[in-house]
């Protein structure tokens, strides 16, 4: 009898204390985008965040790499059914599937990166890519000798246009006479995974005089940056820090801290502080940035660095407002 009472008291105490006790057990999961976990870019950033969480907490993170878009919904639903929570969905293309599944499982917490889904159990994390792209644009304009700068995007969607538009503004800020030559790899999700075509597009730009190319194309970027190296031109990476891919010909990388977004979502769930809603991460919030490390420090002169840092400070303070392509679907304010 006594023992029963004791355990009942303990149970009640536990249920009362649970919210107070910082660490709860969670079963987090990630559904990657079609680019694949090891795209050296966007998805790999998410993976890095998940790995960090795994290492710190010893909590396993379930992962799924879909081969095509139709698998998003199945994967999200399967994870929700298996009691995974929270679930991070990577990429804008999962928005529709996630909205559907999130309605079916109102008690499961979802985080979507790069898109907004307005449901109470969904946390939407979007980035001000235009601000980060602006900075690498400044750097590109300063590093270019020909005054011609290239941009190769992945799939032709407003999100990628936002990279392009911010990049263009940065270029014009540093050198009003510089010219931007832009290409998109394709109009289907396959455009994130076509390094051969990316390389061919980049070579086409180099032939037209481009000497710095910005690859905002997921796994396709591997081909673009390789082409830059093969031709002795400069490449700019995206999402993850890609400087290590080709030390010496990587001018910089536009960092999008998807690793932080993933890690924060898991950590918040674990500590019971997870909240739905929209988070917009810009330069000010540390959500985007430019990469400077040992692999590219020789390419960035002190004068270039000073100019980029000045632009960064001006954007953070609001002195420079970088126009967002997605606000009016045009690169003109």
């Amino acid at each position, binding site marked *: 009898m006594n023992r029963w009472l004791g355990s009942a008291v303990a149970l009640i105490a536990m249920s009362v204390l649970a919210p107070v006790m910082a660490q709860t057990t969670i079963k987090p999961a990630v559904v990657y985008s079609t680019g694949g976990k090891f795209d050296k870019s966007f998805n790999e950033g998410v993976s890095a965040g998940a790995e960090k969480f795994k290492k710190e907490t010893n909590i396993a993170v379930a992962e799924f790499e879909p081969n095509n878009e139709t698998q998003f919904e199945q994967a999200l639903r399967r994870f929700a059914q298996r009691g995974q929570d929270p679930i991070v969905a990577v990429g804008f293309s999962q928005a529709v599937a996630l909205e559907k599944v999130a309605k079916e499982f109102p008690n499961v917490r979802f985080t979507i990166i790069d898109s907004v889904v307005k449901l109470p159990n969904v946390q939407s994390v979007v980035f001000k890519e235009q601000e980060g792209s602006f900075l690498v644009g400044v750097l590109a304009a300063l590093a270019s000798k020909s005054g011609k700068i290239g941009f190769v995007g992945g799939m032709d969607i407003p999100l990628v246009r936002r990279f392009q538009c911010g990049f263009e503004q940065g270029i014009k800020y540093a050198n009003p006479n510089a010219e931007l030559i832009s290409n998109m790899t394709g109009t289907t999700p*396959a455009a994130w*995974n076509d390094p051969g075509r990316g390389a061919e597009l980049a070579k086409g730009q180099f032939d037209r005089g481009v000497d710095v190319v910005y690859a905002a194309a997921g796994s396709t970027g591997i081909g673009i940056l390789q082409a830059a190296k093969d031709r002795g031109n400069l490449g700019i990476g995206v999402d993850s820090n890609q400087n290590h891919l080709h030390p010496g010909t990587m001018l910089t990388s536009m960092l999008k801290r998807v690793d932080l977004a993933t890690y924060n979502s898991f950590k918040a769930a674990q500590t019971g502080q997870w909240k739905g809603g929209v988070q917009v991460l810009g330069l000010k919030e540390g959500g985007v940035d430019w990469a400077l490390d040992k692999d590219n420090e020789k390419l960035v002169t002190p004068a270039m660095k000073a100019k980029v840092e000045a632009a960064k400070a001006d954007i953070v303070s609001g002195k420079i407002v970088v126009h967002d392509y997605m606000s009016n679907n045009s690169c003109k304010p």
Partner: protein
Amino acid sequence: MDEAFSFVFLMLASTLRVATPLVLCAMGGLFSEKGGIVDVGLEGKMLMAAFFAAATASVTGSAWAGVAAAIIAAEALALLHGLACITYRGNQVVSGVAINILAAGLTVVLGAAWFARGGQTPPLVGDQRLAPLFLPGAGDNILVYAALLSVPLTWWIIARTRFGLRLRAVGEMPLAVDAAGLSVAWLRYRAVLLCGLLAGLAGAYLSIGQNAGFSRDMTAGQGFIALAAIIFGKWRPLPALGACLIFGLLDAMAIRLQGVRVPGLGEVPVQLIQAMPYLLTMFLLAGFIGRAVAPKAAGVPYEKEH
């Protein structure tokens, strides 16, 4: 003048780069189809070859070892196709599709198991890739020339040699070949093996020539385009080469024309540019090609009368 010349040269270089795997694949498919074996599995063979080329090159550090591995991998699938279609007289299209699915899955699984990079191989550097021979900027590695050379060679073998004559006979009327005392199966196996050899080279070109490493589904439907080129060329080597070059040129143009402003129209939409090759294909197919006649016995398993 100078600018016009360099533009033409660059377009040509780009066309050749894109067309090389198509040409190699189309010549391979030509041998197979001439011998009466339909090969839908070109795509799969090329993909498997691309994977083993990159994997071997990255482990051994030698591009040539990669080329050898690519040929072996493609030949293995070719033999499998031969076993299913020639020895066991299975449906050739089904076998080809199965090979495509097998290659798409196996490359990613093996890649993930061996290199832990989600199916990609490590990026290749230096000697692990086939270097350009004469024009560093144009990317003219040895397989580009091999592709160009394969066309007259294919023509010569099919049109001028004893083996070629028998191959054509076995694709048109295997019964006659059998009656003449020749082995239909052995002839067809040789056709399939030649196809494997060329598809292997195409795969090696993709992963260690044009690109620096293997990535998932990197063939991106080029095996099927090569198949279309064979039909375009009415199962003849030179016209098939022409078809491959047209596809290559359209692709190169699509790349160059993107983002270019046309006077009076403004910037041409990306979608339109990218639809161009397909529109032109439809147009050419509907109006200019005329009747394309396949080898009569293509796709039909040969069964000896009892």
